[in-house]
């Protein structure tokens, strides 16, 4: 499976490096204490170089439908302190114990060619989650805390083989929260059981640590670009849920918009955007009347904003400088399929 390509390479690198001493165990106090560690190495998540040779306590996972981030490859790990348990609510949203960490490395290139740019960590501390961005140095010996974020020129190869240069944005600490916000608190977005695919070698052990609210929820949510995993409606809604609903929900950063694309979307079709007029869109409206005009993607504000790279128009507002053409195509197809009144 393509999704595991990168992680496979990481595992292979770890095997090749088997002669070296194991990475030290995770530095739990760096996760829990209120300070902001200046270097990623202080956590002892990776033996390196870069984000290779994760300490054995880290569990790799991927998302069946991920957030688009300028076609970056992402390597995700979750760390839960030894002996602690995870609880899942009725929807399969995982709640992690104090001392846990979610570690996500962004970079470009597949397999051995993968070069990390930044690693973002979400740390579960006693008073809630803390989000911190780290940027890798040139020789990949360590990554430095960049609370104010930064921009880096990155050249990447698109699926059609052409290459393009972008100004890759490492989010600042506040921007981390803008997306990871619920009622003003930081929350993880990705770890929802149905969308979270644990690395096969760790899956059974990890799932055994979850206390389910009801019966266990399988990792069988729709994969946005795989028709075998769900209907067009299910895949489009899963895409919007992952790419938009972290802000567009009643307690998120876009609560004032009244456009809600979270799991409850559908309780009101206007809240989902269907025949919903803009409120504060400004030129983001593109001259269109509705967020979604059923059957008319070209007249829907949602498509206009997803297909734009202009600040003030582009949605999501942060995290991309390129258009996710394949994602836009999916939503276009979905809007085309919706019946008009």
């Amino acid at each position, binding site marked *: 499976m393509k999704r595991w390509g990168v992680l496979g390479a990481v595992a292979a690198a770890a095997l090749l490096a088997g002669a070296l001493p194991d990475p030290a165990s995770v530095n739990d106090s760096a996760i829990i204490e209120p300070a902001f560690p200046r270097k990623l190495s202080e956590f002892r998540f990776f033996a390196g170089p870069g984000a290779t040779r994760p300490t054995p306590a880290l569990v790799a996972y991927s998302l069946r439908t991920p957030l688009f981030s300028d076609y970056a490859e992402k390597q995700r790990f979750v760390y839960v302190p030894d002996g602690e348990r995870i609880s899942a609510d009725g929807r399969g949203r995982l709640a992690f114990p104090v001392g846990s960490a979610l570690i996500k490395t962004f970079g470009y290139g597949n397999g051995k060619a993968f070069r990390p740019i930044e690693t973002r960590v979400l740390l579960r501390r006693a008073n809630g989650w803390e989000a911190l961005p780290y940027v890798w140095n040139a020789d990949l010996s360590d990554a430095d805390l*960049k*609370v*104010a*974020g*930064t*921009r880096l020129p990155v050249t990447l190869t698109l699926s059609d083989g052409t290459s393009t240069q972008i*100004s890759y*944005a490492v989010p*600042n*600490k*506040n*921007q981390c*929260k*803008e997306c990871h*916000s619920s009622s*003003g608190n930081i929350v993880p977005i990705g770890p929802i059981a149905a969308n979270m695919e644990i690395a096969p070698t760790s899956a059974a052990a990890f799932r055994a640590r979850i206390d389910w609210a009801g019966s266990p929820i399988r990792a069988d949510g729709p994969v946005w670009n795989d028709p075998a995993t769900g209907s067009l409606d299910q895949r489009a809604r899963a895409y919007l849920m992952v790419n938009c609903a972290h802000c567009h929900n*009643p307690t998120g*950063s876009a*609560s*004032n918009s*009244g456009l809600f694309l979270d799991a409850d979307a559908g309780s*009101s*079709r*206007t*809240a989902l955007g269907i*025949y*919903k*007029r*803009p*409120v*504060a*869109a*400004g*030129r*983001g*409206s*593109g*001259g*269109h*009347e*509705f967020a979604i005009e059923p059957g008319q993607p070209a007249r829907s*504000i949602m498509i206009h904003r997803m297909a734009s790279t*202009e*600040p*003030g*128009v*582009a949605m999501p*507002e*942060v995290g991309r*400088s390129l258009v996710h053409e394949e994602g836009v195509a999916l939503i276009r197809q979905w809007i085309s399929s919706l019946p008009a009144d």
Partner: protein
Amino acid sequence: MKRNFAVSGSLLLTALAMPASAKDMAVAAGAGAQERLQEALILAEPGDVVTLGEGRFELTDGLSLDVAGVTVRGAGPDKSVLSFKGQLAAGEGLLVTSDNVVLRDFAVEDSKGDAIKSKGADNIVYHNIRVEWTGGPKETNGAYGIYPVESQNVLIDSVLVIGASDAGIYVGQSRNIIVRDSVARFNVAGIEIENSFDADVHDNVATKNTGGILVFDLPNLPQQGGHNVRVFDNLVVENDTPNFAPKGNIVASVPTGTGVMVMANRDIEIFDNVFDGNGSSNIMIIGYRQKFDDAKYQPMVRNVRISDNAHGKTGFAPRFDGGEMLAAAFGGTVPPIIWDGVGGADANVYSSDDVPVLNLGMTKSDQPIDTAQPALAKLAGDAAPKLPKIVMPEAMEAAIR
């Protein structure tokens, strides 16, 4: 000795219980401004003042503040300039998401989206700030200049906003609001209070906008049912900039030359204002005219009291459907006060101003204008203002004294 030790021990405890003493964090303009300023806004602690130096801060991304109790203070609205001309991302120039913040004495120019947004930021003070799109009124300008939303206790004092493609000063889904001593010009809407409760809009100048001051309520939003808004002692003159709002937005429907427009609100008072040179109308009271699907939404206007306003020349260039016909029918100009008439006597719309009132005689807010039954009307009733004055928590007023 033992006693001394006990004393210093209790001092130490006191020190631990107090926040670290407030400090000044000076940030100069010049190279690296983006990271240096953003870092200060992140590392600031409650009570701190982030001081902007004189000069231009050339920014590449939106800035944000999420620490409560921080003051951001420049050297003056023409001296400390945050320029977003080279902005590459983010929906606004500066975003504030924490409580008890004071923003004062600086300018925000040419943000790609909104200029300054504060969301869920209670007790926010905007003072002596200039927001400007320097290319003049353009559809490609950002939507809102000063944009507090979902907040309680909003004080906007002595600001200047020029060129917003939606509203210069926009307060949305908030409660307990004062907008005063400010100037809005060359925006689509000068000042707009939307889906909000308890607002005083007074001693402002709204000129050269498409519409001067709007009090609106829209459906399908978390907070709706706008009410208790007083608009008084404002100078609302020569709002004659052709509407340049991008289509689809509600303000795109505001006729060029509108003074004050009230839509779908209740308990609104408009008094002691000076109106002149507004080509469509000085005061327009109408319901929400678009189709909506929201059982909780009330589209009509109720309980309006209009008194003691000075009305200069108006209604000479009506820019709304049927306007020219109405002008022709009523002696060449449209009367200075227009009400859609929805709700009839039960709407309690009263005016004691000594000028003609046009009642459009509609029975439904979304009725087509060509089926209206316009007639001159008296809106007799008790038009005297009676809503209480809006008061901010004392610390907010003290912050700008």
